[in-house]
């Protein structure tokens, strides 16, 4: 499976599971946004921003860093935009 940046060969085996887990996170993020649970959005974003780069996805790291800050500021519309961007990212990734 492709990554944005080269990663250790032995980590490549973990990439599919990583990507699948993020798809689940996306569903949770949308749900949390609808119920305005900004703490839950912050928690998910905080976790993913810390692991995205080692798994080869620095762009995702950037998105989730931004989402964590927006969720802390409780900016609904901007959180929604950010989640849409993440969704688009995965859409284009799955088409590769």
């Amino acid at each position: 499976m492709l990554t944005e940046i080269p990663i250790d060969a032995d980590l490549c085996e973990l990439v599919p599971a990583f990507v699948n887990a993020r798809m689940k996170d996306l569903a949770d993020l949308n749900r949390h946004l609808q119920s305005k649970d900004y703490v839950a959005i912050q928690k998910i974003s905080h976790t993913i921003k810390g692991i995205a780069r080692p798994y080869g996805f620095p762009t995702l790291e950037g998105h989730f860093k931004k989402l964590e800050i927006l969720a802390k500021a409780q900016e609904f519309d901007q959180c929604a935009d950010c989640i849409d961007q993440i969704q688009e990212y995965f859409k284009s990734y799955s088409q590769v």
Partner: protein
Amino acid sequence: MAKILVIEDNIDTQHLLQRALIPIHEIKIAADLKTAWSYLKTEPWDLAILDRGLPDGDGIDLCVELKNLSLHPQLSILMLTGHSDLEDKIKGLTAGADDYVIKPFEPRELMARIDALQRRRSPANGDFKSIIVLEDLVINVETHTVHINVGEKPVTLDLTPIEFKILLTLAKDYGHKIDRTQLVKTVWNNVALSARNIDTHVCHLRKKLVNSHVEIKNCRGQGYSLMKSVFAEPPPATKPLTSLPFVKKV
């Protein structure tokens, strides 16, 4: 080799840490503070790698309690967290952490920091073999580097972390066969892998050792062994022929 307790609830981070630490170190994972305490109270540990945001509390509280109780006076604590503000770092170090690493972490940097903490604990540890020398191959376990002594200038091999782990595992049993199951258990920590996957990694490693006097021998589908290369000895010097025995003199 250190005995490390990893206190981390995120599965992806657990996998990254397992890949980085095994088989150099012995590790156990606790996904919450309650489990961590049960391990801490029943076994000796050299190092705890501690996350902050755990399901049942903040890792900082465990850090403070550990230092107060003096449960493991020799235990080093490395906080590994996404909390990157200056105040968070100060809080963690003041609570008793011996080091504070921000996520995302670079595995080689983490290993170097762990080695530094271990050196502080036991500056002249006679039991720990940090350099393994096999023929012309030199494996530095502390820095995770391997070089071949060629003439006056050593040549450093560019190995991936997995290739290093495979080489180290085989080197520790130099001259003896290690079966595939044992190799998978030691290098990949029991992750189910196909034989093809293992063979691919070993194949890449073999190519990198081609200029060395050691080689990896495939023991007919059963496993591998690291041993002296059959080409290690230079061919015996032969006397130059002064006359060809079968040439008819004209």
